[in-house]
């Protein structure tokens, strides 16, 4: 049984629960849209991992910078991007965040400091280093948050980017969102040593490992880490352990793990856990149910609005390539 937390900030926790419901509803709606043939390319749902967005990304201010992964819908929503523009992007429509040119894996909203999901694992780490480098050069007070998966720790840019951030004393929180799988292979079976945090520590970064499905504990740790990076302008590392309940892609039946394993992890679903904490703290079940229903309704409306928009005009295929050597002047 869950014991009531004495220091629970109910309003803040309710806001996080609402956000997690919105993320889950967005993902489930996108998966339905895939089945309906509306979403055309691969999508990578973050079902089960919503607490990372709710606990970590919410530590950023609007003008702080976020870089995310191919599994980035939740992070992007948490940074404040418009859900309808995101859904339009997933179904390749006019008015999508990226005008229908990027799709799910290149979701970005520069207006809210979301500098992009990335289709290449680990590639965002070095880009984040550069974003923070520019912040330092300009003398800005902003910080950068770079989220990547556990698979990324075996790519060279992980070493290069963390080393760079430390050598140049850059204000970055590196967040390893560890769901245990590198695509469809267990990361542990392909990783030497003691894991992500140990690698970060070896490069001189302060590092914390936290339960990424306990949104309240995660939030508390993240708040400390982000405040310290904001004040001290040094990179830190947050290793967040979670579990992906859905497949690698929406089309992945995930036959590489047993149904029992997934079922066992359902008990640790971050939404279920926070909901239980709030119920014990005296929030009425109807109010909690209302958050889920509101999120589902919102995302139904989001999909309806998104599918009502047309595909971009075909001449848009040649815009925003380059100024010098613009394909509208010479494509061949």
């Amino acid at each position, binding site marked *: 049984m869950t014991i009531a937390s004495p220091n629970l900030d109910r309003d803040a926790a309710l806001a996080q629960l609402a956000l997690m419901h919105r993320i889950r509803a967005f993902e489930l709606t996108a998966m339905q849209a895939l089945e309906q043939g509306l979403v055309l390319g691969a999508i990578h749902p973050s079902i089960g991992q919503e607490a990372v967005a709710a606990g970590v990304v919410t530590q950023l201010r609007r003008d702080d910078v976020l870089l995310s992964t191919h599994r980035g819908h939740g992070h992007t929503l948490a940074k404040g991007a418009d859900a309808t523009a995101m859904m339009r992007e997933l179904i390749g429509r006019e008015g999508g965040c990226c005008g229908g040119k990027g799709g799910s894996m290149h979701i970005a909203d520069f207006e809210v400091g979301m500098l992009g999901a990335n289709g290449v694992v680990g590639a965002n780490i070095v880009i984040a280093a*550069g974003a923070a480098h520019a912040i330092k050069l300009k003398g800005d007070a902003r910080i950068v948050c770079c989220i990547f998966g556990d698979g990324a720790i075996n790519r060279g*840019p992980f070493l290069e*980017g963390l080393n*760079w951030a430390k050598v140049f004393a850059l204000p970055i929180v590196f967040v390893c969102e560890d769901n245990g799988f590198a695509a469809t292979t267990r990361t542990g079976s392909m990783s030497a040593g003691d894991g992500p945090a140990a690698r970060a520590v070896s490069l001189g970064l302060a590092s914390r490992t936290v339960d990424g499905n306990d949104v309240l504990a995660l939030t508390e740790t993240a708040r400390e880490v982000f405040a310290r990076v904001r004040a001290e302008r040094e990179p830190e590392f947050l290793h967040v352990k979670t579990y992906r309940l859905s497949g690698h892609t929406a089309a992945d039946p995930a036959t590489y793990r047993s149904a029992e394993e997934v079922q066992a992890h359902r008990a640790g679903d971050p939404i279920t856990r926070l909901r239980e904490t709030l119920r014990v703290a005296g929030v009425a079940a109807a109010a909690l149910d209302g958050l889920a229903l509101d999120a589902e309704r919102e995302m139904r409306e989001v999909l309806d609005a998104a599918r009502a928009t047309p595909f971009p005009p075909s001449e848009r295929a040649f815009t925003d390539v380059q100024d010098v050597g613009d394909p509208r002047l010479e494509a061949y």
Partner: protein
Amino acid sequence: MSQTSYLQASTRALAEEMRRDRDVWCVGEDLGRGGVFGQYKGLVEEFGPQRVSDAPISEACIMGAAVGAAMMGTRPVVEMRFSDFALCAIDELVNQAAKARYMFGGQTRVPLVAREPIGIWRNSAAQHSQSLESWYTHIPGLVVICPSTPADNYLLLKAAIRCDDPVVYMEHKNLWGLLGDLPAQEPDDAAITAALGTARRAREGADLTIVSWSAAVHECMAAAAPLAQRGVHAEILDLRCLWPWDKAAVFASVRKTGRLLVVHEAVSVGGFGAEIAASVAEHCHAALKAPVKRLGAPRAPIAYAPNLEDRVRVTAAMIEAAGAAMVGS
């Protein structure tokens, strides 16, 4: 007018652009000590170690950081030392820098300059000698520049830094010491911008068009006098930019001379000469008096021993022979 080297021309261009725009900065290995060839000498003293930044030997991070820093509103000049080493940063250049503006629907731009010196240089063997410019012409989003003279290295580096697109800027290592005249006064903005995508007519002639770029231009120039003695007056176009390339100048010249010889140091197979040859065949076929001819390196790595290295060079003698044969003299 005093003469300036190809190398010093680049230093002057960079210093002027850094004075002009506080967002311009450069980053790469050994820059605080002037860079591997001394192209950055004196800059750290004037601009400080933040704007003339050393870097770890982390090519992917140098390029990737430049992408992030460019998206955040700065204008990084990235030093890769050798175009061969820049292959360690291909994802960052090709998948990130070249694509960011497009795949994010125009929300951002990546105004970085990647300096990637190319070319055969003093017995440096297979990993320090390549000319890989054609690879980058294949990538939408990138601008590709290969200057051959001090004046052009000055003008085009300034233009590259001001360009809002990612630019692959390929100086030739064997040209660092080449002397030439530079303008005493800084050219106006229009002249700088106009340099991108325009060829330079290095020599006027009526019998044969030779299109070349980078160090090979000087081999073509060396072949011009003996060709003229044989009655073949070659028109030599220094392309300077490979993307965009000056089709209008090339087509106009070929329509005048009726003959095209493309000369480059890079491997002939899949080289940019193939693109030029095909374009001329498509658009100027009726004007051609002889088949289009390409001269490039054989498809073999570049060796260390001087005699082996020489086997892959395109020389003035080869250009003379090819040009004369095309005209039938």
